[in-house]
């Protein structure tokens, strides 16, 4: 009986909670594939694909980033169960984004890649964000958590520079409207500031 009440109290934590979140995280990919296969991405599908994958990468990052905040403000500690999956999806969409850019914008021409990586601040920021995500992706397993111990937590503080760099990546592309940048910036600030203060207090 105890087992049943436990389950009832954690409807999202056990059973179908994780599969549900997994399927939700796949929906943007489904939209991308659907659009690509049906030719539904408009006359410039390359641009559409780049924007879609980039948008979902930064949105997924924001969702991961908000898990800790929601726990400390609202006591939603159950969300922690999904953080690893959400983080891996953020890494997945960011990697997809970079793959699309390398394939369609740079056509895997290494002189172009090197030039873009050395001359364009927004590309440097975006690429750096992706690079900093990699160690977190690689250590997203129980073995690494056990093995790294305290250092695992420290390593995953990389989320802060990743959020900052991802935001810069968007800021430096603004052309005709500030709205999106403003929304992302406010969200990141609201989510990060209380924790940065906690950081200070702990020292």
């Amino acid at each position, binding site marked *: 009986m105890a087992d049943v009440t436990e389950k009832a109290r954690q409807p999202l934590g056990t059973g179908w909670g994780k599969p549900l979140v997994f399927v939700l995280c796949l929906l943007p990919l489904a939209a991308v594939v659907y659009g*690509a296969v049906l*030719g539904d*991405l*408009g*006359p*410039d*599908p*390359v*641009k559409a*694909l780049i924007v879609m994958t980039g948008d979902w990468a930064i949105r997924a990052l924001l969702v991961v980033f908000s898990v800790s905040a929601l726990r400390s403000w609202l006591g939603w500690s159950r969300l922690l169960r999904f953080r690893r999956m959400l983080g891996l999806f953020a890494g997945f969409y960011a990697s997809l984004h970079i793959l699309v850019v390398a394939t*369609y914008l740079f*056509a895997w021409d290494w002189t*172009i890649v090197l*030039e*873009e990586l050395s*001359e*364009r601040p*927004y590309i440097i920021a975006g690429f750096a964000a992706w690079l900093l995500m990699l160690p977190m992706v690689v250590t997203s397993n129980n073995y690494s958590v056990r093995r790294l111990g305290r250092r695992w937590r420290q390593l995953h503080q990389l989320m802060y520079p990743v959020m900052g760099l991802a935001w810069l990546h968007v800021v*430096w*592309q*603004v*052309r*005709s*409207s*500030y*709205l999106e940048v*403003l929304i992302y910036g406010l969200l990141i600030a609201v989510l990060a500031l209380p924790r940065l203060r906690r950081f200070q207090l702990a020292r």
Partner: protein
Amino acid sequence: MLIKKPDDIASSEITPEAVYLRRREFMQGAAAMAAMAVAPMAFSAPSPLSHTPVDARADNPFYTGEAQTPFSDASRYNNFYEFGTDKSDPAKYASALTVDPWSIDVEGEVDKPGKYALEDILKSVDIEERVYRLRCVEAWSMVIPWLGFPLSDLIKQWQPTSKAKYIQFETLYRPSEMRGQRSAFSTIDWPYIEGLRMDEAMHPLTLMSVGMYGRELPNQNGAPIRLVVPWKYGFKSIKSIVKIRFTERQPKTSWQGIAPREYGFYANVNPKVDHPRWSQRYERRLPSSLLSPNRIRTQMFNGYEEQVASLYKGMNLRRYY
């Protein structure tokens, strides 16, 4: 018990193989029809416009034989920030614009200033077809059959004074009909301003366009009258013009005001001078697809080098970008 089963499908009901093999086309056609029926028409098909067809000979600089971008793409994929920042916004929202009556204010260093009604302007010129490449500063491009007349025809009528060295153009400012102008987050300071040097404005390639694809301009493409300067990035080809001012000094254009390091007054298509944020060496010719992205090399002056290079003789194009 053996019962002979009669054929329950008459041979006349069997789909012929040829039709069966085309079932996908049929489904696509049906889907397209359904989409058309469901989607509210963003704009009604513009009326046909009588004109002299283009002389489609290979050596005619006013004609390119490259594959033309379909009308549905050229009229649904637009940068016209007066109607929103998304490429699909202009097609969605430009129907709110009233284009009749329309007039152009002619001001500045000119002998015949005044308010010219569009119908009077059109009576004084011959409409002809030009098939031009259009290269956007964002590294995509199209091929569009425009209808219009050389800007020089109007300039000659208005008789600029000897002090007129430049021409400044202004787009309509009407926030009640142009929802993008009501946005609080826009980087653009309305109204949109563009400009040309007098010799650029007088160049035979420089077109005042009132139509495309044999019809009047759809609102989202800059109705009722717009500029088309094929050797410059698309943002120079200002839409829905209400004011033309002849000046002695170089006008300050909208994009120069927003980001002077990124958008110069000249804005000539030049694969050797990158936009600070992206390369200009290649472009995606639209419509592009994921299987064949249609990525082509960008040509100097968008392929009009022979016609316009002399305008910039001796100028450092890295400095005057």
